[in-house]
């Protein structure tokens, strides 16, 4: 296992790192502080699975639909995303700069009997080591990094020919300020205050401009909205707050 000195990596913000380390033990409690992420998990998993099944000709109804696909989950936290992907048969590398997260994730995967390769490392270190993946995931991390174009180019470099990069993040709009900061952190109390900094949110235009020079081609963009009545997140054409984006490296 590689343990790089996280503070030295250029895309990691030291303050952010400390915040998530404190949360590590809370990751797997579906009724705890991470409840909103557990609620959000099915919609992003379905988006990733369906994109992967289209790209690699898999049957999404199978419980091993991602068998042997090599997937990198950047900012894997406690493994809420990595572990289900591993259960679907993918060879997942879960990378997180916070050692506490990686430890929590590793312990949980072992209890569940799911195989995931968790590493306390950064996207830069993996890229420098020449790692290549069928799918590189940057889910809910872009809004936490210090240098978005640098981070994206690093992610893109690890996408194998014919592979995908999928990113999910928050748009920087008045609506996202109202919903994601005021609503989720202050009114509803879904997220601890200070989880997000609105000025670090990334518009789809900025994300596309960061992807363009990397040689990847954006192939899909989808909004995600919360359906209050059904109490679940759903895909939508509305990209004002949460959105996901898929980019493809041509063969």
């Amino acid at each position: 296992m590689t343990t790089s000195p996280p503070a030295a990596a250029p895309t990691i913000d030291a303050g952010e790192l400390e915040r998530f380390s404190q949360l590590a033990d809370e990751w797997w409690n579906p009724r705890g502080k991470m409840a909103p992420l557990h609620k959000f998990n099915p919609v992003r998993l379905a988006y990733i699975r369906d994109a992967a099944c289209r790209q690699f000709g898999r049957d999404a109804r199978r419980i091993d639909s991602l068998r042997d696909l090599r997937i990198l989950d950047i900012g894997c936290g406690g493994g809420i995303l990595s572990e289900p992907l591993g259960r679907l048969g993918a060879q997942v590398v879960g990378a997180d700069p916070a050692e506490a997260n990686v430890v929590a994730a590793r312990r949980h995967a072992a209890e569940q009997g799911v195989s995931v390769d968790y590493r306390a490392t950064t996207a830069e270190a993996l890229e420098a080591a020449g790692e290549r993946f069928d799918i590189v995931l940057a889910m809910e991390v872009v809004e936490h990094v210090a240098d978005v174009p640098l981070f994206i180019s690093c992610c893109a470099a690890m996408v194998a020919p014919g592979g995908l990069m999928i990113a999910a993040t928050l748009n920087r709009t008045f609506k996202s300020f109202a919903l994601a900061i005021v609503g989720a952190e202050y009114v509803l109390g879904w997220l601890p205050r200070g989880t997000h900094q609105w000025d670090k949110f990334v518009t789809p235009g900025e994300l596309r401009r960061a992807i363009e020079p990397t040689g990847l081609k954006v192939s899909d963009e989808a909004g995600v909205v919360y359906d209050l009545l059904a109490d679940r997140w759903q895909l939508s054409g509305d990209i004002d707050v949460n959105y996901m984006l898929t980019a493809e490296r041509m063969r």
Partner: protein
Amino acid sequence: MNKDIPARADVMIAGGGFAGLALAIALRQGLGDAFTVVVADPALDHPIADARSSAIAAAARRLFSALGVWDEVVSHAQPILDMVISDSKLEDVVRPTFLTFAGEVAPGEPFAHMVENGRLLAALHGRAAADGIVLASDAVARFATGPDRVAVTLAGGASVETRLLVAADGARSALREQAGIGTVGWSYGQSAIVTTVAHERDHRGRAVEHFLPAGPFAILPLTGRRSSIVWTETTAEATRILALDDAGFHHELERRFGLSLGELSAVGRRGAFPLGLKVARSFIAERFALLGDAAHMIHPIAGQGLNLGLRDVAALAEAMVDAARLGLDCGGATVLERYQQWRRFDTLSMGLATDGINRLFSNRSDVLRLARDIGLGMVERLPALKELFIHEAAGITGEVPRLLKGEAL
């Protein structure tokens, strides 16, 4: 039959009745051979002895079609083409009809079919075995729940680790008790006498429900010139009638049945079942779910007990299949909460509705009788309300799980 019980299973279902087997088949068909399903029931290797018949509502019939079970049953299924309800005293010679339903939910699709339980169970057994479900003729003796799995011990000594234990072990569920889940409800002090009769004339697919003072007396059409009888009496009276000799039983039966279908002859065994309303306080616990009669037992007045159980099956199967296909823990709290949210309101409303109907009709008061006749008469005259009743009885209102629409998972 027991030699191949695996040490690990994705799901363990205690109870091989309709609900348990249907869930097993739905999960296996939805998730494939890599998903291990074990059904444990000591009765699995006994010949099927259930002499009762059931009304299969349209939604449940769609589920059986989607599971590939209906084709095996259809030649033994009698469509209910219309339904007649009368309200009368036992001694009334003429029983006025207050409500008729000509029952189709869609062109060519009757709102219900009558099927003998034995035929349906045999078809479910056959399908389950063909789909590679592990059928263990053994009982679940005890279980211990951990955060990630349940350690289940069978009476025969085998132990199985599973992600989810489903209790489909009937109204007096021993596992529900072991899980410490209480029930709310009450007994009606009534029992249902059930038997099958043959008659001279063709029933033409008509179901008849006489609301007699002691409770409903239902004549439900079976294939051939036969009908299934569900006959409600006070428990004391039911015990007395059941103990009569054949001639005495026949006399009591004929007094209620009437002679509209000609001479009657008994063709089936008779039995009696106590009636009550019982709903579990919770349908779920950690890595544990109640299914079918183990979760609820309602008054059979509207023939909805089995259909409610199959609605449980459709909801739990869909919640589990959707989760498993995303790599999520299909026995985890999120899945179970979705199941419970989906089912509990529907169960309570159906339980209370059948309770209300029973209280309204199991009564000798002439005032009440007048009120309910006006009520039934109004339903008869309001087509939209009648339509709603038919669709509710057919189980196709509300947010409908895919299987109940006849779609594969």
